[in-house]
């Protein structure tokens, strides 16, 4: 890993499906050892962005790098990334332990080290007692835990998590949040997509809100709430609702949309109507 590069960097990253634009000229940078909270309503393009950043989907335009390596070169980035897709990547016929062994072997981890790591992670996620039961007997939360462990098993530098607390009970969700916090303490970078704003508020160093393929606002949670220039008690939820609101005919004129320039957007502020303006 080269420390003089950002953990994640994108430049005009664009994905079109036919005439439909899923992600439109995305520019962002994520520092090492930070959590980037990636917010957006359903269908905003979050999963497509994650797939492009993990080399699973080819961008239509633009570029992206992980630790300075282009995402077009999967071989160069695969060892340094871990990915938890929205749907837990599990085979129902295998047990939790067998599933993790499968991924461990595919990652070519040394056998003894793989077993140690699996045992440790299963303990940490309170899955040890159920590790030898078949996954088709697992609850949604247990499947999610297995999916999360596989993303971390090979100790990647950059972890992409798509809704990691989905389906988890409060205690399990708390474990996940603690794990994410520990990861960044150890210098890992986490790119976190979620709908649960309190999770982002608690963990994220930087928050980016994607809306209809555009990064409509970006900054630390504190900065974003401050930009609202509203009364005390403004939350990230208020910011999210305002920047992702459908603009009315009058408002749309005074609310220029993302032009693909992240710097300009980062300097942007939220107007009195709660919409992003360029300075």
């Amino acid at each position, binding site marked *: 890993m080269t420390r003089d590069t950002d953990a994640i960097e994108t430049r005009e990253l664009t994905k079109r*499906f036919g005439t439909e634009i899923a992600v439109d000229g995305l520019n962002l940078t994520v520092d090492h050892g930070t959590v980037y909270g990636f917010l957006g309503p359903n269908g905003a393009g979050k999963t497509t962005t994650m797939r492009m950043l993990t080399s699973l989907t*080819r961008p239509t335009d633009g570029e992206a790098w992980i630790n300075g390596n282009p995402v077009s070169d999967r071989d160069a980035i695969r060892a340094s*990334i871990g990915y938890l897709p929205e749907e837990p990547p599990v085979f129902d016929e295998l047990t939790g332990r067998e599933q993790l062994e499968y991924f461990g072997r595919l990652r070519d981890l040394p056998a003894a080290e793989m077993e140690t790591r699996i045992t440790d992670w299963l303990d940490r996620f309170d899955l040890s007692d159920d590790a030898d039961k078949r996954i088709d007997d697992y609850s949604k939360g247990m499947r999610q835990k297995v999916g999360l462990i596989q993303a971390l098993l090979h100790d990647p530098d950059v972890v992409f998590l798509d809704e990691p607390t989905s389906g988890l009970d409060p205690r399990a969700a708390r474990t996940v949040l603690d794990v994410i916090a520990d990861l960044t303490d150890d210098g890992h970078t986490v790119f976190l997509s979620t709908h649960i704003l309190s999770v982002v508020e608690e963990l994220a160093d930087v928050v980016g809100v994607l809306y209809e393929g555009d990064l409509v606002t970006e900054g630390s949670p504190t900065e974003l709430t401050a930009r609202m220039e509203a009364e005390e008690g403004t939350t990230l939820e208020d910011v999210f609702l305002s920047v992702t609101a459908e603009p009315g005919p009058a408002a749309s004129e005074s609310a220029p949309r993302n032009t693909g320039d992240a710097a300009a957007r980062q300097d942007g502020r939220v107007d009195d109507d709660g919409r992003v303006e360029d300075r």
Partner: protein
Amino acid sequence: MTRAKRLRLIARAELRRRWRTMKGNTTQLLALAFAGIMLLPFSIGGVFGAYLAGGFVAGSETEPLIEWARVAFVYGWIFVVGFGGYRAYAVALRPDNLDGLLTAVSHRDLISGLLLTELALWSAFFLTVGSAASVAFAVGAGSLLTIPALLLTLCLLLATGIPAGFIIALGVRNAGVRSRLLSRLRTLFLVLLGIGYFALIFTNAFASALEPIYRVLSPTPIDWFGDLAALGLGVGASPFRAIGAVGFTGVFVVVAVVSLYRLSEWLWYADGVHITHEVERSDDRSSRFNGLSRILSQPVFGVVVADWKRARRSPISLSFALYPLIVLAGPIVTAVQTGEIGTGLPLWVLLTGTWVAGSLFALNVVGQEGAALPVTLLSEAPERSLVTGHVLSGALLIAPITVAATVTAGILSPHSVPVVASLGVSALVLSAVSGAIGTGIGVGLPRFEAVSVSRSTKAIVPSAFAFAIYSVAVLIVALPAVIAHSGIAGHALASAVGVNRFVIGLSGTLVSAVFACLVGIVSMYVARDRVRNYRLG
């Protein structure tokens, strides 16, 4: 809303849902179209046959005819109960969104609505073709009174047979959800049932299997339906038994409805047994797979072990591999019936073994990863581990069986020992390489979505097109070996060229082996390239 309207609404919604599901499934639509095309000549032939039967009845002795009518309607009733029960078990009793339905209507309304759905579907065929056949029969027999009598009998047959099928299906499903043993052995029971079904087909033993059931039913009022149908034909039908058939139907329907209410309540509100599939933990490297783990790389070993474990725990997901085995059933039955193994059987074994070996795991390399695909693609060199792993999974499992079975059948056949040896080499090479042939075809035509492999089980299986192309490819590749070892062609070639049969056989083996290896290498290259550069969208 009145109860009758509610039932009609449930039935209408269920019919609409099934039709839309079928409309979205090209394979099912094609199967339906094929069935329709096949049924049309049978239906027309049936109607014409009914006319001829009517004419035959008009000019025949009366005594055996009424017995024939009784026998025919008892067997007809068994047919309706059997197929109605099967459909109830597999389709009707598994409505979509059961919880939602049961919170909106009572279980009594729901089971009645589902029963009405099935009655509507059966009536659509039974009463249209049945009406035409009844009229044709009556015209042939010269007795117009037979038309209403036959139609009424058909209606009564459905009114009693379909609910009887539902009761049996509900009984079986109730036993299934309550019995730990039945729940555990469900797959085994289904496999045995499937084997029994095909055994009956191939041995033409349906009649003897149904005879005990007929003997049980013939002393019951089911036997009276024949009298009702034959009323007006003047063949000795008993009017009392005919009236009894109508009365019996009334009583049966009342009892059946009460039973259906109770059984459906038991099923849908059951606290069924919960089977937890606990697997004894074992270190794959120090146990059964010890030898393999030493030979194979860690990622390839992982794929092979996962393939075998998944297949063992969900064998029904490999049910498509039954198609080649069905092809093999014919020659085996012939061998059993004649008591002789000809020169052809070892070739059939070789061909089907090769066919199965390549289709089991290698024919949908990308698709069968399912939800794990994004993560698998990010692993170390997935193109190597996935493609090689899936090819080896099938080859290591099936090639030894194919070689052993081919050689055994060859030794028991008139083939000479050298020719059997050549056949064994063919079996080894072809069954080891067929997976490689399948990989490229499979990645070109992947299937990602789970499809119904039985009425109640969904699994990701290779696409029908991939399977068809792969089957043709395997057949072409194996053809030189098959021709060279076949009795007639091999002998003709040996005579024409003036060499020993063994030389011809060995030449066929060599040609097929070289051909198979070339196709396999190209196919694997395509597969590896596709996996290496695979993108999700």
